[in-house]
Every structure is written in structure tokens, then in C-alpha cells.
């Protein structure tokens, strides 16, 4: 699919119309931005809490994506490509920021064995639940963050394995743990395990 943009030139008479044809790189980018723009915004939100820095991160991700499409070879799906590039750009951002902000990140396994610091009633409405979910995701190390985000985006274990590069078995274990953590943190204390 190719996109065409029209530019009219006022200087000459009669008016000349030039057609700007999208390169494959531009076309792939447009397609990715249209299809995964919202997912990329959610991803940026999960990697950066500060609104200004988040805007910068999102721009960085879009730039990385556009640049990457110069070498897009269709050996994997557009979705896998987009998520790999976006997660790599976001993980680099986290590593860079860690050096300046000394943030402590944990694994899903560590979260699983740690009691929830906030009371269950804190999740009084959806906004608060979302904030708590975001806070939880933002404490995770990059790889586990990729897995939980892909899970929340609705991707299956095979797709997550393709994006992260870890084995499907390992992904399945991590998802099991993620579900445990989510269930424990967002259920009323008494409902756990039901």
C-alpha cells in the first residue's frame, strides 16, 4: 500500500502539482504508527512516569521505528518488529535513566515473594487500579517489563517469545508468575487463590 501526498506550487502558472511518493520505509512506518500507535503510547507510559520525559521517550521510539524500517525484511511480522524495536528503545532509555536516577528494579520472581505494600482497598476505582498497575510495571527489570506489557497487550506466549528472545517455556512460566502477582495484588485479601 502506498500513500500519496499532494503539494501545490503557487509560483508558476498554471499551478503545478507534484506527487510525493512514500518510500517503503515511510509506508511501513505509517502502517505501524496507525496500527500500533496506541500500544506504543501505553508502552512509553510503562517505561517512564514523568510526562515530559515520556513524551521524549515516545518520540525516540517513533524515530527508532522509522529508522529501523530502512532494513525491514518481512522475515518476522510487522507486530513483532514494532514491539522489538520499541522495547529495545525503551529499555535503552531505562538503562540510561537508571544511571542518573539510581532506580531499583526487581524481577517478577522477586515481586511474587514480596508482600503488597499498599492496602487492597487502595484500588477503589479503575483510575487507581491503573495507577497501581503502572507503578507495579515500572518497578520491573526491562525483560520482565516486556513480558508483562506484552501479556497486558493481549499477546500470546509464542509472540512474546519471538519479541523477547526467551524460550516459550520460560515465557509461560513468567506469565504464570505475572498472573499470580496480579491476582494477589488486585484481589481482596480473602479472594486470593479462589
Amino acid at each position, binding site marked *: 500500500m502506498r500513500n500519496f501526498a499532494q503539494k501545490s506550487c503557487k509560483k508558476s502558472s498554471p499551478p503545478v502539482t507534484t506527487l510525493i511518493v512514500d518510500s517503503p520505509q515511510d509506508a511501513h512506518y505509517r502502517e505501524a504508527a496507525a496500527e500500533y500507535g496506541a500500544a506504543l503510547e501505553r508502552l512509553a507510559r510503562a517505561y517512564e512516569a514523568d510526562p515530559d520525559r515520556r513524551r521524549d521517550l*515516545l518520540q525516540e521510539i517513533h524515530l*527508532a521505528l522509522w529508522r529501523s524500517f530502512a532494513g*525491514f525484511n518481512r522475515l518476522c511480522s510487522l507486530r513483532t518488529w514494532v514491539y522489538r524495536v520499541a522495547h529495545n528503545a525503551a529499555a535503552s532509555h531505562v538503562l540510561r535513566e537508571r544511571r542518573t536516577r539510581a532506580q531499583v528494579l526487581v524481577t517478577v520472581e522477586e515481586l511474587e515473594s514480596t508482600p503488597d505494600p499498599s492496602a487492597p482497598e487502595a484500588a477503589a476505582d479503575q483510575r487507581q487500579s491503573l495507577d497501581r498497575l503502572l507503578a507495579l510495571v515500572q518497578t520491573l527489570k526491562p525483560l520482565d517489563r516486556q513480558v508483562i506489557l506484552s501479556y497486558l497487550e493481549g499477546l500470546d506466549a509464542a509472540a512474546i517469545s519471538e519479541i523477547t528472545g526467551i524460550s516459550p517455556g520460560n515465557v509461560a512460566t513468567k506469565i504464570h508468575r505475572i498472573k499470580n502477582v496480579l491476582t494477589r495484588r488486585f484481589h481482596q485479601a480473602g479472594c486470593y487463590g479462589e
Partner: protein
Amino acid sequence: MANDLNPDDLRNLWRDQPLENQRMPLDEIRARASRFERRISRRNLREYAGGLLAVAIYGFSIWKQHNPVMRAGSAMVIAGVLFVMWQLYRRGGASQLPADLGFLASLELHRRQLIQQRDLLRTVFRWYIAPIIPGLIVVVIGSVPGRFELRYLARMAPFLGALIGTLVAIWWLNRRAALKLERQIAELDNLERQS
């Protein structure tokens, strides 16, 4: 229900969250990309500009000088500088990581690049400083007049001091940068161990 969310509810909550719908026009992306490319080109140019300047200065010296020792020394410095530039080209060039690699693969590749850069900085004396020292020594010897006088040494002292100071500063700055990379590698190892 909000108090009692199961993982599927949370998935829906996540995907239905309100967004700002931030978009980045292609023109802006292209402009930023070309700014980035220009920055990389300038950095690459800077890496070689010093070397090219040294080649030009000592080349001029060979052409203008009649003292054979000075000319030999200048030729040795040029050979040393060309060797250093070749080493920079061969091992130095900061390559971009392929953006589409899986996380673990890109972490591993990034780690290998950091180790390569660290080793390059650690051994800076061997491949950056040492190759030009013999030529510089010969140039200094060649510049001494037939009859050695103490006042000549005094006149040369600031020049020699600046030269030695520059070489020591290059060595020290590179060692410091190597230590910084060492810390980044340790951080990556920590991430990888727990991934």
C-alpha cells in the same frame, strides 16, 4: 468489581486506558533523523581531524626541513599517526545496534560492544600513544643544535612539558572512560543474571 480485578480485567483496563494520542509527523521524524546522522558524521570527522592535522603539520615539516634527523622523525610521527587512525577505523567505529533484535540478543550484543570499547580504552597507551612516541623523540633530538646548551633545554622545557602532559592526559581520560564502561558492563551483567 474494581476492588476485585482478575488478570483479564486488568488486561482490559490496560488496553482501555485513556491516551493522549500523540503522533509524530513524518517530516519531523525525518528532520530528527538527519540531525542525528549529522551528529554522527561530525563525531566521526572529529575522530580523524586531529590525525589529519598532525599528518599535514609533519608533512609540511618534511618538505621544509633540511635537517635529516628532523625529517626522519616527522616521517616516523606520520607513520605512527596513520597507524593510530587505522586502528581507530579497525576497532573503534561506534556501530549502531540492530534495532529489531530480541531483547536478550541485543543485550548480549550491547555487552560485547561495551567490552570491546572498554578494552580499546584500557590499552590506549599501546595503540594510540606508543606508536607516535619514537617519532616525537627523534624530532626532539633532531631539533637540538650541534653543541648542546642548558639554556636550549630550558627553552624546550615548556614544549616538552606540554607534550608529555597531553600524552598523560589522553592516557588518564581513557582509563577513566574505561572504568565508566566497566560499571555499565557490571550493570548489564546484573540485569542479565536476573532476566
